[in-house]
């Protein structure tokens, strides 16, 4: 009996082992957050914590929605429906079915919203948030209640816009999602101007923010673009007259390019923009918002800024309390690896902090929160303990090298910029792509690889450190008004590639000998085509040189953490992961904003006003490869660098 029992136990164990062998073990990059997030330099109140205002809620709606009683029976303000047919198209059968299901067609879309607002005289900045695509019957709009409670208590009016009725199997409706947001704003403007309305003179229409999640995340960018247009790009017979003072656009794990006006990615200009994305997003599994970040332009001279944050171990759905951790529906736990995710509370703590800080800075004008966007290490106590890679740029940034203009690796982005390199094993410019491999980021970067080892028997012999130099001519340096208050920008990501040892320098003192020596050694083995993976920490020296040749040098790691790619495994099965994604990481460059003042302080002879070159010296790691982009200078980054580095 005992034999039989142990035998069957063995069989069960064997079966369990066989079945579990199909699942890959949990693989995560080693967490450095206990060190990186060990400081708190910002002394302002935590923007992720509730403020002092009492909070009330109400609903407004058109009352036509068969499925949503709260937007019919519970509304405080009745709204008129809008005709969205130019923006949302569908097959006749689909349209008929939806009209039957919801009680209205595209020509009578309701304006439904749930509002969290502070009790007080105001006026309060108005912020709209819109969900993305999800099961239409698993209503998404209540899922941002945690932001509503937070923001209203901090003096914002937050509206969670209901667009569940365009969820489901629709395509090409993102412009409709955006247009609906602007129609909501039209109603808010009217209510603010109407005596007797609960929001009469309580809305600060000069400070408007729009936020969106997933498809809603693309929609807010489109809305920011439509807001300044006079005609609908796809049909000029549809006229626009919005022109709202949208100052803040926040995208949560957005898609990008599902709507392309006139066949191009939606151009966005002159707004403060922030995008966040989880590395373990099981729905939008590439950082699409990075492309939006790249193309946002600041052209009107106002102090805009943009930021992009990549949050390690965050997913797609936990930003919304309704969506949860299964990014592709209730059954997606079959293939999504949920073990690596940070908890829903941690993920939402992050969104509360960053959305709070972003809106406080952009709509309340609280500049004390600005440094977090340049270097997240200044707010280590507020952020959940995970790893972040952040991009940043403010309106004063002037690009010296973006690698997008031409195929000449020795020229920069402005006339008067020249580029040179010394002893590099790899030096090439190439387009960056998103993790799925066939989705370009629409930007080029330079890849620099080095190995200080000299090929040969002596494995300790090191050559001169490799370097990469961006040089400015006299007139350009003067035109950029570089000075002690300026900052150097650089975006960089180390990779796992490690070039082989460099060839020894040729001995020019010896005569060439063409005869074959009998005792000649066999030719050195050709280095492996695939470089070995390296895991040692990456660092390099940034060296600034003035016209007189004085130098100032600081390690890059002083201004941020140069991390190797963060390992991502979204799917439970290794084979499916490898089949679906060419790489198990997303190349996200970290932006380093380096105040020139800090260089000048350690090298008193260095004259920032006569900056001539920015040199990357690869002397802190024997071998490695980095991707570099967006080298530039700015003279208006001061509010962002005011706290220095931890």
């Amino acid at each position, binding site marked *: 009996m005992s034999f039989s029992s142990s035998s069957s136990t063995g069989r069960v164990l064997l079966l369990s082992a066989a*079945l579990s062998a*199909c*699942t890959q073990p949990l693989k995560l990059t080693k967490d450095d957050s206990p060190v990186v997030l060990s400081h708190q330099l910002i002394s302002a109140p935590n923007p992720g914590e509730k403020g002092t205002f009492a909070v009330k809620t109400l609903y407004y709606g058109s009352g036509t929605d068969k499925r949503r009683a709260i937007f019919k029976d519970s509304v405080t303000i009745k709204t008129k429906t809008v005709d969205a047919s130019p923006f949302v198209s569908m097959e006749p059968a689909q349209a008929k079915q939806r009209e039957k299901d919801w009680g209205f067609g595209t020509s009578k879309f309701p304006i439904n919203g749930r509002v969290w607002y502070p009790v007080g005289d105001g006026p309060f900045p108005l912020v709209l948030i819109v969900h993305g695509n999800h099961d239409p019957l698993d209503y998404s709009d209540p899922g941002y209640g945690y932001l509503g409670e937070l923001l209203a208590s901090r003096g914002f009016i937050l509206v969670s816009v209901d667009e569940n009725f365009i969820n489901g199997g629709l395509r090409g409706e993102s412009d409709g999602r955006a247009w609906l947001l602007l129609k909501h704003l039209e109603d808010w403007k009217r209510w603010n101007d109407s005596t007797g309305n609960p929001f009469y003179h309580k809305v600060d229409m000069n400070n408007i923010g729009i936020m969106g999640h997933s498809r809603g995340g693309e929609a807010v960018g489109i809305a920011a673009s439509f807001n300044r247009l006079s005609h609908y790009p796809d049909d000029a017979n549809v006229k626009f007259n919005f022109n709202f003072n949208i100052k803040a656009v926040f995208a949560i794990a957005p898609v990008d390019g599902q709507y392309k006006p006139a066949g191009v990615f939606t151009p966005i200009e002159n707004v403060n923009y922030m995008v966040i994305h989880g590395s373990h997003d099981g729905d939008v599994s590439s950082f699409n918002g990075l492309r939006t970040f790249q193309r946002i332009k600041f052209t009107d001279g106002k102090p805009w800024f943009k930021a992009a944050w990549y949050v390690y171990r965050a997913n797609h759905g936990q930003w919304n309390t309704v969506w949860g951790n299964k990014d592709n529906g*209730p*059954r997606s736990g*079959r293939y999504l690896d949920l073990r690596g995710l940070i908890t829903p509370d941690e993920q939402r703590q992050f969104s509360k902090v960053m959305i709070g800080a972003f809106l406080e800075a952009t709509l309340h004008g609280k500049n004390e929160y600005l440094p977090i966007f340049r270097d997240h290490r200044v707010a280590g106590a507020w952020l959940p303990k995970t790893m972040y890679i952040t991009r940043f740029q403010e309106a004063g940034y002037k690009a010296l090298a973006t690698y997008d203009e031409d195929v000449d690796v020795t020229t920069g982005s402005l006339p008067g910029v020249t580029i040179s390199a010394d002893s590099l094993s790899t030096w090439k410019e190439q387009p960056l792509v998103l993790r799925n491999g066939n989705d370009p980021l629409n930007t080029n970067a330079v890849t620099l690889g080095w190995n200080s080892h000299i090929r040969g028997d002596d494995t300790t012999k090191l050559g001169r450190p490799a370097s990469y130099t961006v040089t400015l001519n006299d007139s350009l340096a003067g035109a950029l008004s570089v000075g002690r208050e300026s900052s150097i920008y650089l975006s960089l990501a180390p990779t796992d590639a490690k070039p082989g040892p460099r060839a020894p320098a040729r001995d020019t003192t010896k005569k060439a000998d063409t005869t074959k020596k009998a005792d000649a050694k066999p030719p050195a083995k050709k280095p492996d085509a695939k470089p070995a993976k390296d895991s040692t920490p990456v660092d390099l020296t940034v060296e600034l040189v003035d016209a007189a040749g004085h130098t100032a040098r600081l390690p890059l790691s002083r201004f941020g953490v140069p991390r190797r790619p963060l390992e991502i495994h979204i799917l439970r*099965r290794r084979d499916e992961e490898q089949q679906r994604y060419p790489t198990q990481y997303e190349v996200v460059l970290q932006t380093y904003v380096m105040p020139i003042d800090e260089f000048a302080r350690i090298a008193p002879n260095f004259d920032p006003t006569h900056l001539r070159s920015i040199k990357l010296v690869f002397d802190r790691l024997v071998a490695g490869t980095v991707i570099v982009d967006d080298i530039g200078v700015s003279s208006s980054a001061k509010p962002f660098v005011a706290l220095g580095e931890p």
Partner: protein
Amino acid sequence: MVLRRAVFAVALLVSRSLLAQTSNNGGPYAPLILLLPSGPRTLAVGNTGVGGRDDDVIFFNPAQLVIARGFSGSIERYSATSAGGTLSAVTRFNTGGIAIGMQMVDYEAPLAAFPPSRGTMLEPGSGRSLSGSVAAGTSLEAVVGVGQVIKGVRVGLAGKYVEDNAPALRLSRGAVDAGVSKDFFGPYTFALAVQNIGASTTIPCIVASTPAAGTCIVTPGFPQPPQFTSVRLPLRTTFGVQTQRPVGQLDLMATASIWMLRADWVGGSGGAELGYSWLDGYSVALRAGARSTLPGEAAFTGGAGFTMDRLSIDYAVEALTGSRWGQRIGLRVR
């Protein structure tokens, strides 16, 4: 419209046949192979496969070849002296699929009774024919089918060669299957198939009605002038519906069919499969079904399956008369 007319026609035939049910199911039928199960998954759900999506649907309804893919093989042990097997494969062709299939059964019978039924094939071949030979035989089917989409309806046609090879007699025939199917109301597949269209025949025998109704003992070369009995191809018309949908974390497949042998016998079958997947590509399934019985069969069937990516292992068991159980195991590659 086509389907509606078909349903109407079937309803008429069914009602007529219900009134005309005969004790011998309208038989005798031959070849035997056309009355046997074809795959473990279909067998487990009452031998219901007219709306199936696996490659062995070629033995049920060629219209479904439009969506079926892969290849499979299975073997079944019916009794100590009878066993059979099936092979089939389907691949993409034009707007649908093209398939080949083959199945065969090897059996003994107590007497050289012809045609054998599922009941007689279960018995051991202890008896010998009047000429003294062992009463063993084989029955086989080879089929080629094609399914295409025409005006939104899946339409299929299959041609087959069937053969009964008993010691005393070899009967072979060509036959044709035809079918249509279409999805309605979302995940519901409605399917209609007419199988085994072909000519019946007569065979010589010396005793017209022994040992069971409708069979006779065949003795070639017997000096008496033989008598003749009619043997019919089991022309079968089947109308069925099948659906597959998630139920919570489980996957449910349910199927049912009503079928008619000639215009003389109406039966029904159906069953359900409940699947659970704990990891994408891996799943287990439990199946149960019931059917109207032909000679040798009992009503209940059941089974289980394990899928590992494209490979599935399926097991089915069918109740047979005399407290016997037929057990079928198969491998499927999608």
